[in-house]
């Protein structure tokens, strides 16, 4: 018996669409009235869409299994995903307590380590520069509504 080759990109897409279809479809069925055709309820259109999405998803799954070319998923850069997410989260967490300049500084400092071979000194200097630039342009220039100093500093 030979090993069947699978197009993982099609399979993944198909499963993703099916998952969305099932999730949104079941939410609609449970919590949204469907109504009648001449007076559609809030659930009518979503259920229609979920049905279409399920059909598309299933078609993709079938196609991926019948496909003769094996297509791998490809490499995933986990480091970049995790570090970039942390950087953005740091910005969100620090905004109110520490203020804009510190939030920008922290976010850019963390983000820089998403790239391999980040030099700590260069990165710190760059983060400070970007922080000063953003504070000047957005807070003072564009009159952005954000604290200069957060409540940690009595701002």
């Amino acid at each position, binding site marked *: 018996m030979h090993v069947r080759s699978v197009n993982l990109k*099609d399979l993944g*897409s198909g499963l*993703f*669409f099916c998952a*969305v279809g099932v999730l*949104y479809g079941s*939410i609609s069925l449970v*919590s949204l*009235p469907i109504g009648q*055709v*001449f*007076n*559609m*309820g*809030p659930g*009518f*259109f*979503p259920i229609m*869409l979920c049905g*279409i*999405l399920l059909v*598309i998803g299933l*078609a993709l799954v079938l196609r991926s299994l019948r496909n003769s070319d094996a297509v791998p*998923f490809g*490499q995933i*850069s986990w480091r*970049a*995903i995790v570090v*970039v*997410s942390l*950087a*953005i*989260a740091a*910005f*969100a*967490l620090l*905004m*109110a307590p520490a203020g804009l300049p510190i*939030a*920008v500084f922290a*976010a850019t*400092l963390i*983000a*820089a380590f*998403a*790239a391999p*071979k*980040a030099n700590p000194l*260069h*990165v710190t200097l*760059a*983060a400070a520069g*970007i922080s000063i630039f*953003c504070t000047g342009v*957005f807070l003072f220039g*564009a*009159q*952005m*509504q*954000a604290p200069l100093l957060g409540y940690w500093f009595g701002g």
Partner: protein
Amino acid sequence: MELFSNLGLGFHTAFQPINLMFCFVGTLLGTMIGVLPGIGPLATISMLLPLTFGMEPTTSLIMLAGIYYGSQYGGSTTAILVNLPGEASSTVTTIDGYKMALKGRAGAALAAAGLSSFFAGSVATILIAVVAKPLTSVALSFGPPEYFALMVIGLTSSIALASGSVLKALGMIVFGLLLGLTGVDVYTNLPRFTFGSIDLLDGLSFVVIAVGVFGISEIIRNLEGNDGTPPKLAKVGRIWPTLVDLKRMIAPTLRGTAIGSAIGILPGGGAMLSSFISYNVEKRTSPNGAEFGKGAIEGVAAPEAANNAAAQTSFIPTLTLGIPGSATMAMMIGAMTIQGVTPGPNVITGNPALFWGLIASMWIGNAMLVILNLPLIGLWVSLLRVPYRILFPAIIAFCCIGVYSVSNSVFGIYMVIGAGILGYFLVKLELEWAPFVLGFVLGPMIEHQLRRSMLISGGDPTVFVTRPISAVLLILAAGLLILVSLPQANKARDEVFTEEV
């Protein structure tokens, strides 16, 4: 002449110092961000969108249009100088543009791109001014079924113009339509798909999704194959084209403008397609055909004229019908809605200063591009020299600040993380986000028109085929869908998009 008085009103509005200034700022910032490699117009607009929120609608739309042109032109600059197209529609420009750059004629290539774009933009602007009014009166006679059918054809043609699998593009459209429904249903006041969150009652934020999937996920992807060294730059050389160059540019620019203007009106994002077509037309008809692919100035002028004309005329369905023709136009509609302007046939009568001001500022924006870009090429080149490892943390900071200033809350910033990660993985699966964005913006509109159609017809679905206009549109949409699903058509489509690239 009514047209002239309208344009007069437009220029009066656009020449107000504040509007003029923000048109300038918009084109400048748009070019600045658009020049950065790997950042296309969609990412640029989503990043800069929040800057326009504090202004009154007219000024903000004028600035937004400026950002749009700037980002397009910035993309061409990168395409020519480093052989990295910022977006699909400048892919063709890299073929001959970069070859010219390698021969030390980058300056002439940039000037050719700028001048032909300016010419095409001016012609297309006049075209918009001429056809907008009559088209609007047609649009006003449309009922819900016609609108529904129009949106269906818009969505299907976005599949035809997407470069990947038809089935996947279709799936992304439906996914977009579905997520677009998030929030309170206007008919019943019931919350839909909010997962109990108060922050989602107004719907998923358009800016959050755009910044996440076009900004953040793009950065993660760029970090994969990039060790942080700046790209190799070609020398700019002498900027002004020679007289011979100018002569060789004239006919290709004219043809490119015509092709671009015609294709841009079609829904579905014609900028890319028109640049490919006009390049191929020139290659076959030009007396210098043999030079194509080796640095022919025609190969830069024609596609640049075409994609700029198309970028311009794609405003026509957006402004007159309120139906976006491309993902970028969907962003513009999203931005207008945030400003409290509902795009559609009523804008032209209800807010003529805004409408004509926007059109006049399109021309001003194009003129500014020429004035701005050619003398400032040195600046753009130095931007390209900034190493990516310095650049991307700054872009992340801009994205965060942008999203925060939309709502003055951090909720959206957390959502950006989710959108970014989802965006990254779906791109890995070769799912395209452009059809999604179109679906996302059209979701609530298309549902609204469907419900209204059913209300007026008493639940009879044949209303879509018994009304002539909607029947024709739906048949066209079905035909298009069948056509793109055929294996031969798929092959031909692949050839159009991959020829010589």
